[in-house]
Structures are given as C-alpha cells and as structure tokens.
C-alpha cells in the first residue's frame, strides 16, 4: 500500500496487540474504531478484532502513531 495522502496502515501482530491494549487501559472497546468496510481495511485484508497501527506525519508533532480497532 502506497498512497500520497493515506498514511501508512499496518496490522499489529497478535502478541503486540495484547500488549498495546494492556498499555492503554486494557479495554479494547475503548479504542478508536475503523469499519471493516473501510477501503484501507479492505486493502490490508484485516479482520474484525485486528488492531491497526497508523503512522502519520503531522505538522506539529512530526511522526505519530495511532491505533484503531477493526469493527463491523
């Protein structure tokens, strides 16, 4: 996946997913969500319950990392 304006999306490995969820309070339903039908998710081939890592370039903070949970 290589797009001019869509930032890098990647599926987080399962063990790491648990780690990240634990780091941010342990409740995955509190995470930001992304629809399974989202074009990026379709392109990635992610499944419901996968955690997506988004690496964004922002003008104020430089490179930042964001997570979104795939939901239906």
């Amino acid at each position: 996946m290589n797009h001019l304006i869509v930032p890098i999306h990647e599926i987080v490995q399962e063990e790491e997913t648990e780690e990240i969820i634990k780091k941010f309070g342990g409740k995955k339903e509190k995470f930001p969500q992304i629809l399974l039908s989202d074009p990026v998710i379709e392109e990635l081939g992610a499944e419901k319950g996968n955690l997506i890592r988004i690496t964004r370039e922002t003008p104020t903070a430089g490179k930042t990392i964001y997570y979104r949970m795939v939901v239906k």
Partner: protein
Amino acid sequence: MLMKRISAIEFNVLSPEMIRKLSALEIKTPDTYDKDGYPMEGGLMDPHLGVINPGLRCKTCGQKMKQCAGHFGSLELVRPVIHSEFGKKIEELMHGTCDSCGRIAIPEEKLKQWKEMDETTEQTIKRILLKAKKTKKCPHCGTAKKEVLLDKPTNFYVNKERIYPTQIREWMEKITDEDLKMYGYTPEKIKPEWFILTTLLVPPITMRPSITLESGIKSEDDLTHKLVDIIRINMRLKDNIDAGAPQLIIEDLWDLLQYHTTTFFDNNTAGVPPAKHRSGRALRTLVQRLKGKKGRFRYNLTGKRVNHAARSTITPDPFLSINEIGIPTGIASDLTVPELVTEWNKKEIVQMMKDTDNIKYFVRANGMRKKVSEETKKEIIEEIEPGTKIERELKNGDIILFNRQPSLHRLSMMAHKARIMPGKTFKMNPIVCKPYNADFDGDEMNLHVPQTEEGKTEAKELMFAQKHIISPRYGAPTIILDEDGVSGSYILTMKNNKLNREEAMQYFYEMGITELPKTKNGNYWSGKQVFSAMLPKGLNLAYKTNTYKQLKEMNPEANEKEFHEDSFLKIEDGELISGVIDEESLGEGKGKIIQTLFTEYSPEAVERFYYYANRIVGDILTKKGMTVGLDEYETNPEIEKVKAKAIKEEQEKGEELTEQFKKGNLELIPGRTLEESLELRMMRLGAKTKDKVGKEIMRQKVEELLSNDPKYNSTVMIMSGSRGSAINLTNIAGMWGQAAVREGRPKRGFIDRLIATNKRKDVGATAGGFIEQNFMQGMKVKEFFYHSMGGRQGEVDTGVSTKVSGYLYRRLANSLKDLNIANDETARSANENIIQFSYGDDGVFPMKSWRGKSINISRELEKLNK
C-alpha cells in the same frame, strides 16, 4: 466522593392499570374550588393530590408542605384518545400489520430470515414497511391489506375512511408479541395499545400550584386550566352519550377531547392551533415546560445560580497589578469568606471581632450559624476557639475569580487577588483586557469568591492571572502590553531619547531604585537605562526588532549592516545595549522579552515588569506626547512626483493590457480564462502602483523618525508595530489604489460597465475601480462610489463571519468540553473512549511550551555556547 455508575435507564409507557395504581384520587369534577374558596372533593385541587399551603398536611401521606412531593390523580376518559407524541409509532405499526389477524403482513419464512439478520431495529422496521407496502393481501389470514394514512398528529384514515381511537386500540391489541419484538418492543413491558389513552394521569398540585394574588383572587396554573378543559369535555361527552345524542355530535366532542389532550402534552404540536389563555397568551403545557432555553433543562438544571458572586461595570486602573482586581467597598462588605479558627489565628480573629465589624457570621463546630451583631458580639468572642469558623468580609489579598461572558476560553475566567477600593465599579489593569476581550464602554463582569481552602488553592494554582501570560492555545504571550504600551516603550528606548535628572529620578524611584545609576552622557540618562532597570540581572537576548523588519520590507536588497542601529536588539546581563523595544519584544504571539522572562525567570518576574512598565511607559507617553496632526499627512512635491509617475506608468501598462485583451493576445495566467487573466493582471497592476507610492511615503517617514529630532506620530505606531501599517498611511496620504469586491475588481452594476457614466466594455483601470486619490484629498465621485462598493463588502463580511464563526466555535467547544487527559496520558472522552494516544500527538501542553514546542532548542544551544 461516593460515585455510582448508572448502568442503564429504562423509559416506558404507563399502562392504564399502572396509572390507576399510581393515582391517589380519581378526578370526577371539573370544578377546582367551591364558592367558599375550599378545594372541591374529587376536583383538581383536592388536598389528596398534595399540599401547597404551608401548615396544612397532605391528605394522602400526612406530611407537611416541603416533605410531600405530591400525588398523582387519574381521570377516566369516556372515549379513548391518541397520545399525540405516539402518532408516528402507531402509524408505523398500522402500516406493517394486518387489521384482522394482527400479524405483520409478511410471510413467516421471510420474517424468520430477517430476524436472524445482523441489523439494527430501524433497519428492520424500514424493511418491514417497504415490503408491507407492496403486499396486497395478508399472507396469514388472507384479508385485504388496508391503506393507512395519518393526518398529523392524531387523525387516522384507513382506505380513506376515518378510523377512531377505539378501533385503533383494538387493532393494536391484536398485534402478537412475537411481531412486536420485530419492531423492537419488549412486549412484557410495553404494549402499543397504551399509546391510546383510556386513563389520563393527572399531575399533582405541587406541579401546578395556584397563586393567590394580592387582591385575594386565585390564579390557576396553565396545566390546571388545561386539565379543567379536558374534564369538562369529558363530562359533556359522557352526558351526550348517555342521552343518546347523534353520532355526529359525539364525534365532534370526541375530537375536542382529542384536541385538549394533545395540547395538554404539547401546545406546539404541528398542525394543531395552540390553546390560548383568556388573554390570548398561549398556554405553557408539559412539553413547553421542558423544552428550549427557558425550559427545565437549560434554565433550571444547567443554569443553576450561585451565591458569593457579584457583577458590576468595569473601569481601568493601570496602577493595579495584573493579578489584582479593584473591588468596591460596597460589594466587598456583602461578600463573605469562611475562615477556620486555629490556634495560630485565634488571637487575630478575636482582635478583628473586637475592632471591626468585618466578621458577619460565627459557625460553631456542629455547624450552627450565628449572626454577629453588636449585642451578640461579646458572647460570641467567648465561644471562638479552634475548630469553629467565622465568616468575614472580603479583604485585600483574598483569592477571587473574575469572569467575562462569552466564556470561550479558559482565560475568560481567571483568579485574581482582591483589592478593596472606594467607588462602585470593578477595576482592572487594562492589559488583562485582552484575554477577557473586555473594554470599558460599559462592559460588566462577574466575580466569584471561592469558599473552601481547596477551592482557593485550586484557583490560585490553576487559574491565577499571571500563570496565563503564555497562551494555552499557541504557547506565546497573550497578556501583553499593547498599543500605547508598545508605542511608549518605543519612544522610551529610542536612540535619541534623553531624560533629565528629574525625570530619571522619578522613574527609577518608581521601580524602587533610590540611588541614581551612573550615566555616560552628562546630566542626562538614556531611556534604555530606565528600561534596563525593569529587567532582571543575567538576562541575555539578541534578536532583530520590528524596525529591522520594516526597513527590510521597504528595501529588501539593502545591506543589513547599514540599517539603523535600533534594528538589532541586544540585552546583556539585563542591560539593554542596543535596539529599540517594540512589538517583537512585547507583542502578542511574539513578545520575546516577555516569554524569556516567563520561562527562564518566573511569572512573577513578568508581573513585576508589567507593573513598572505600565506606569513608566504611560508617563513617557503623556510627557513626550504622541499625537497626529493633519500636516503629517500632507503630501510634499517628492511624493507627488512619485505618485504622478506611478499613475502614468500604470495607465500606460493598463492600456497595453486592455489592448492585448481586445486583440486576444494577452498572456494567460495558468488555469485562467482570458477575462480572468486580465482581471488578475489589472489587480496586480493596481497593487503595484499603490506600493510604489507607499514605499516613498514610508521612506520619508522612517527617515524622519530615525533622525536626530523625531516627531512622535503615527510613524511611531507603524515602526513599533503597536497599531496601523504602511498601508493605512498610504491610504491617507498616498492613494487608495484598486477597489476590491470578493478579491477582484468590482463587477456588479450595469451591463458591461460599473456605473452609468462609464463607457460600455471599458476594461481600463479607471473604469474598473482604480482610485487615484487618498483620504486627505478626498475622492472623486466615481472613486467614492467604487470605494463604497468595497466598503460594503467589508461590512457584510464582518457581520456574517462573526455570526458563523461564533456558532461554529460554540459547537466545537461544546463537543470537546468534557475531553480529559487520563493518567496514561491519553486524551479521552467522558466515557473513557480514547481520542488521542498522546495529547495533541506530541503530549505538549502549549501553555507550558515555547510556541507549541516543548523546548526552544536554538535558545538552549545559544546558552550552551556561552
């Protein structure tokens, strides 16, 4: 604090049985009081429904006024009516179901299939309605499917024939539980037949108290009036039915009963004329009580009022610190602060009690309050001991909160220290006007007095004015010396500014310096010396001033080394060596001196700086005088020459362009048509012409200001950046240039021309809105008209954009207001959903930053290199 989490709230519809069970009394008569003024038995004011007279006891529960919340009554309706709020729900059910068997008019297999689908109820209902609409015959019993029509809010037609609530109720009763589940109902708890009222719940008297007017006449609440109407019609309907009146009359009365119940719930139902009071005023019924700005939610629940607050007009007082608010004695003596008596302050408090009347109340350890008066004073002094509390008037140094609406900001409410002063208005240092967005044309502000130690500390630590010198939005100074403050500092620190012994002594003394510093120039002290005295020792700074910026802009190619020495500011060890103090040092979002003082020294350092600067700078301005006169804007031959040349060049170039345009060989601007290219080129040409004139004016003005004998006029404002710009000066003394509407030349007017005196299809400069004159000369009639076209747009734009952006901001602020930063540093919403994994993606709090960056790297490197 004990906190309980609400897991769920269930809303339901009351069944007739439930209403009867809830009811303490069945209402039988429309009369409220008998002729002696006593409530009627079985009437709307029956004492079984609650008490509103102090002293009386409730006939249902036996409690007194404040304890008894009131009891509901009930009214048996002779004929059922539709609850108007449920008209749509009923329609939905009627559309989808069969009136004879009560099943959803869709084959069983399909229903089963749909039930298993992963859909929201709304989606399922939509599916049912769509399918049922096409169905001609009920697949369960074979009856022909009826066409239902709802004439809002409560009249139903089946196959174009009126159907009455009794029939609808029967229909609703038929619908099976299984089918109701498809509609999202919980059949054990709610039944659609309850949407049609057979029994009306009558609210308790406490909800609709009658008011006795001074004349002794009783005035009833709007709800009572409405209920009386309902009962009256209900009785008339009953009488008519009993007497065997014709169907037509009964139906009329029935409709009337429907109307009254509908307006009882909502007097603003669409399609129903609002019920009026005798005076013609619309009645305020149930929905009206809750809804809108004046409704229960926004007015009474969100809009609770507070004690220990005051409001008054504000006036400026530059001799106050930015942390102080002047509070008039009259207000201060009404506001109180509780103070706990301890072993350490007992003596003081007793003394205060003896000497003054400042202590208003005494509170015993058990919470009993006593008012302090001349008579009780002696006894109370005996009682004062650690653990008790006193409530005293506001005194100097107390922490208070100061606020101005609209409160868009955290800076709109800041903590200050009280300073009791004579007068009737709140007084504030004019430099805190900026964060509050206040001025003194009659603005009023609110004051609150925190009552607990926790509240006071919180206010002081989180809301104190001096802590807000750096903006929480962009991380640069926002409480700043502006306008006169900057102009004054500029004049004070200008190269040629000399102060005689007397002046110097006064200024140094104001800063607490009693010994005159040494001077290099005889019996005179430089303004830079005075300014340096306001800076702390050890401060080192070097940067380019606004003067540099102005000079650079006027002459981009010039050698920087030849710039006036005031262009480069240098502070060494708290001594202003060179450079002039201006916008770059003090201004909003720039304020290099201010921000350095704040971050490298302390908020207090800035507060002191402002305290002194305010006095000295103000005094300089009044002494030296800064004013403008007409002669300042008079043009001289040199300017005239430049202007004439510029205009000539413009006209030549303009003609050339129009010529090219007519021939069609005008060089196109990428992405533009021929016409657009011409317009754009003409606009640029106009701007260029104005610029030429402006440059010459500025050249002269700056030369004059930087000379050995400067005049203090609008050039000071422009060069210091305190107010106005070269463009404003050009407008007055040079030329206005091209008039613009929507970023282009004015277009609207007549066919192919702007005004009637122009030739058709003339696209030249003058015909396109170019204004050669300036404000001093006055414009020609044509030009004046062009100018007005641009002016009008400006006026409209400000009106529209303030309205639009204000509302936009409000919505944004409301949607973000309960976000918070959790302990794991994530930004979360009120229900703990993660919004950002690190606040602002970088975890930087702008208020504690250097212009949004966590650290000012170049500054730190500079320090290291020393």
